């Protein structure tokens, strides 16, 4: 409704995301946890915090791309589960597919799921929430085809994939996340694909009129999401040491929470990976702190939900440009 959007500097734009609120809450929690639990600042614990968020972080990388383009991907947990269990089955002793081939197959599965999601969403024109809700159920069902095989991961290379610590301190999974986030940031900032994606997220009709191949860009964003899901699936079986069909259940909600807290706007057009990364660390620290403080496991769900509601509410109030009439 307003006439001219005021130009803000990058720093001011950052202040307008939910991230500063989140950092405020984080600092309070950090002080609280450090004072009440002497194990919180132990190096062993911090290592654990960083290694624990690998799967959600990798998935969040892909979903952030989709959400910036105005899409939605709820099928990520199932896709990671499918890539994980298929690779685990292929790595079983009596099948013995070479490891690189297994990796390629896992990635192909993820990309294929993303491609299917993207085709249904763009070519048929179904709402992305509905489409991915559907594929979530379908893919999870497919995972259960291998339910009674119960494969264990004995392959050392795959085992190390998600468990190595660089210099015995820094988890390699965090390196993956940082690399993924940096590459995606560069891609979104400096390539035509990235700029088109932001345009589509901002105003899809406008992007179409401006001659941007909207459908193609959107499909690519879903394929990227599927690709990162397959990597997350490999990390899952690596860290857990086995393949089970239920791996990754509920990841979509965790990831959605992280991304929204990280300042990516539902509906697209706004968002950056720095915010998502900060949100990722914060969510993990809070989960970890609650474990150390012996918060009952059921209360942790309440706290997580309340945090989401709180941050989003503060964000909504702060960013209200004019009186909201309807």
């Amino acid at each position, binding site marked *: 409704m307003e006439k001219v959007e005021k130009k803000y500097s990058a720093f001011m734009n950052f202040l307008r995301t939910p991230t500063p609120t989140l950092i405020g809450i984080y600092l309070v929690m950090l002080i609280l946890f450090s004072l009440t639990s002497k194990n919180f600042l132990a190096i062993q614990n911090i290592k654990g915090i960083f290694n624990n968020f690998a799967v959600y972080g990798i998935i969040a990388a892909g979903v952030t791309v989709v959400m910036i383009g105005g899409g939605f991907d709820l099928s990520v947990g199932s896709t990671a589960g499918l890539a994980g269990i298929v690779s685990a089955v292929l790595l079983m002793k009596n099948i013995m597919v070479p490891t690189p081939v297994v990796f390629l197959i896992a990635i192909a599965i993820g990309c294929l799921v993303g491609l299917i999601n993207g085709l249904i969403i763009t070519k048929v024109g179904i709402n992305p929430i509905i489409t991915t809700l559907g594929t979530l159920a*379908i893919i999870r069902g497919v995972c259960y085809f291998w339910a009674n095989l119960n494969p264990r991961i004995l392959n050392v290379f795959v085992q190390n994939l998600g468990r190595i610590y660089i210099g015995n301190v820094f988890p390699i999974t965090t390196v993956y996340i940082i690399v993924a986030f940096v590459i995606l940031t560069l891609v979104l900032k400096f390539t035509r694909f990235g700029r088109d994606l932001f345009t589509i997220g901002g105003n899809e009709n406008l992007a179409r009129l401006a001659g941007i191949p909207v459908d193609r860009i959107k499909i690519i964003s879903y394929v990227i999401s599927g690709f990162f899901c397959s990597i997350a699936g490999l990390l899952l079986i690596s860290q857990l040491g086995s393949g089970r069909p239920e791996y990754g259940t509920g990841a979509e909600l965790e990831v959605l929470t992280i991304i929204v807290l990280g300042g990516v706007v539902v509906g697209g057009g706004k968002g950056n990976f720095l915010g998502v990364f900060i949100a990722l660390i914060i969510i993990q620290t809070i989960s970890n702190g609650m474990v150390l403080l012996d918060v009952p496991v059921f209360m942790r769900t309440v706290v997580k939900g309340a945090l989401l509601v709180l941050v989003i509410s503060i964000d909504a109030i702060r960013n209200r440009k004019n009186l909201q009439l309807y």
Partner: protein
Amino acid sequence: MAEIKAAEVLGRKKSRLNNTATLFIILVAMFGVFSYVGRPFFFSKLNIIPMLNNLSFIGIIAAVLTMVMVSGEIDFSVGGNIGLTACLVALLLSKGLPGWLVVIIALSGGLLMGAFNGMLVTVIGVNSIIATIGTMFIWRGIGYTLSNGESMLAINPVIDFIGRGFIFKVIPFPIVLLVIIFVVTYVTMSHSKWGRKIYAIGANPLASYLSGINVKKVKFVSFLLCGATAALGGLILTSLSAVGMPQHGQGLELVIVSSIILGGTALGGGRGQILGTLAGVLILSILYNFLTIMNVYYFYIQIVQGSVLILVVSTYEIRQAMARRRI
């Protein structure tokens, strides 16, 4: 989406009728085929009555959630609401409170949850998808905390009657509730000023505001009612299973939202019919019941669930695209 809306206005009445009628034809056909293929179990009193009981709370919630969705919002927290209500009921009964008081407290609890959602969406202005995903966590977590993660017996004459009682010794009480809720919501949506307002808000909130509709009030009341009916659904489920568990209603929001969308309600609001929702609920419930009777594994049912959702919405989208081309 703007250009689609214009096309819809031109061909609205006719196409809506067609969609709902088609759904009921599909429903009757499915029922016939299933009765034949699944004989003698499918079409027997032992199957039909429990199936209707199980579908009653889904239908009750779906009817009111349709109102919320037509107004352009969504409520994912209904499943969590059921879990919290179930635990609350069982906890209060174990403390020795009389049944009627427990029912009143449970329904007021539902109203409170609805009010909280409504406040987040209307007063604070949070996107309803995100807000209700957050409150879904909160309700479910409180349910777990209340019950300490255990399932508690919930046996009391009043509570028993809600899910397992009979009116005139033949009609199950949940079915009566289902019919009442559907009649009330149907009349509200199709024949009252309030219903007109909901459709108007869903189609264009700004225009509705400018023409003098209190948009926030209408949305808030829809959320309020949705919370209360979800609590009623929780009461029915608690009564049917005779236990209050925090896991009650887990994943139910997806079944309910699928049914509503299958019934022809648009996600962005402004389009949808209560009768369509009824057809959607019946079709999905009958389908899952049939698959269970035919001894299909649960994970195959999951695959069917997802495929049905995508297929149904695709046909709608394709038909709409064809209608647009005609204009």
